């Protein structure tokens, strides 16, 4: 059955808007942070920019996305549905959102330590790890957007 053009009750729209806007900010921060870290080489200014984009854009975006997700999940009544009836697209989105949040926090901790080490004149190795993790997060969230939009199965 196709869900394209399915009619949605009006009171689902605002929670969905919050969810999507948060996800867009999250991905915007990830793209910015990843680009800055990738092109930084050893430039301290760009390395810091990459970290702070993840911290001040992606992380708030993740919180808004997750709050919106819970809001629309409850509003759509999925709380009352047995887990065996939850569709794959919702499972994929939820797993990636939550696991991604955990990885994002780890990324920010590693990046934060990396920025502190950078300011004390030490190597930027931890910020390279931050770059790798942010690329992984970006790829995972692209899959989540694909699943939430295309609704496989």
């Amino acid at each position, binding site marked *: 059955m196709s869900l394209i053009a399915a009619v949605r009750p009006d009171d689902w*729209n605002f929670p969905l808007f919050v969810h999507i*806007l948060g996800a867009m900010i999250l991905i915007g921060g990830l793209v910015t942070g990843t680009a800055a870290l990738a092109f930084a080489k050893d430039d301290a200014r760009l390395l810091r920019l990459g970290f702070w984009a993840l911290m001040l854009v992606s992380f708030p975006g993740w919180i808004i996305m997750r709050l919106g997700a819970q809001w629309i999940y409850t509003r759509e009544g999925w709380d009352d549905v047995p887990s065996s009836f939850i569709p794959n697209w919702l499972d994929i989105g939820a797993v990636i959102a939550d696991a991604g949040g955990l990885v994002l926090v780890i990324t920010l901790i590693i990046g934060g330590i990396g920025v502190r080490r950078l300011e004390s004149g030490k190597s930027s190795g931890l910020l390279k790890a931050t770059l790798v993790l942010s690329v992984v997060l970006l790829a995972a969230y692209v899959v989540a957007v694909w699943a939430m939009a295309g609704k496989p199965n």
Partner: protein
Amino acid sequence: MGFKEWMLAFHVLSAFSLVAGMTLFWVLIVVGRKIDTPGDTLRLGPVAKVGNATVGIGMGGTIIFGVYLAFAVDSYAIWDFWILAALVLWFVGTGLGRQTGEAFLEGPKKAMELEAAGQTGPNAELLALNQTSRGLAFHAGTTVVVLLILIDMIWKPGA
């Protein structure tokens, strides 16, 4: 997942790409307001290119996949109010975005001139170009238009 669902997924991914690029430019606008040297201005160039690419993919993808869906999905028609509104807003956003790009290119152009002249230190004119209020106003306008498109796509007025 059928062909139309794939097209919808690409349409939505394009919208994410567009907003990601605009978010990136917001970060560069904030950071650029304190930059007054040619070297630091030009250092942001590769990051800005990523923003240009994501905005380009986003603008192209949203219109191509969106118009396809307007014709392919039985319950949508290209003359539905919410689809016409989105098309008008898309063209307005494209125009504003082009103006934003032109305003923010002045800083890097000046930075290249200064570097070519061997001036690598702080420059007040470069700082003023990096702080362009015209560019800021256009980017704010583009952001409002994109938010209106998102609202239009979710609420679908008149559908």
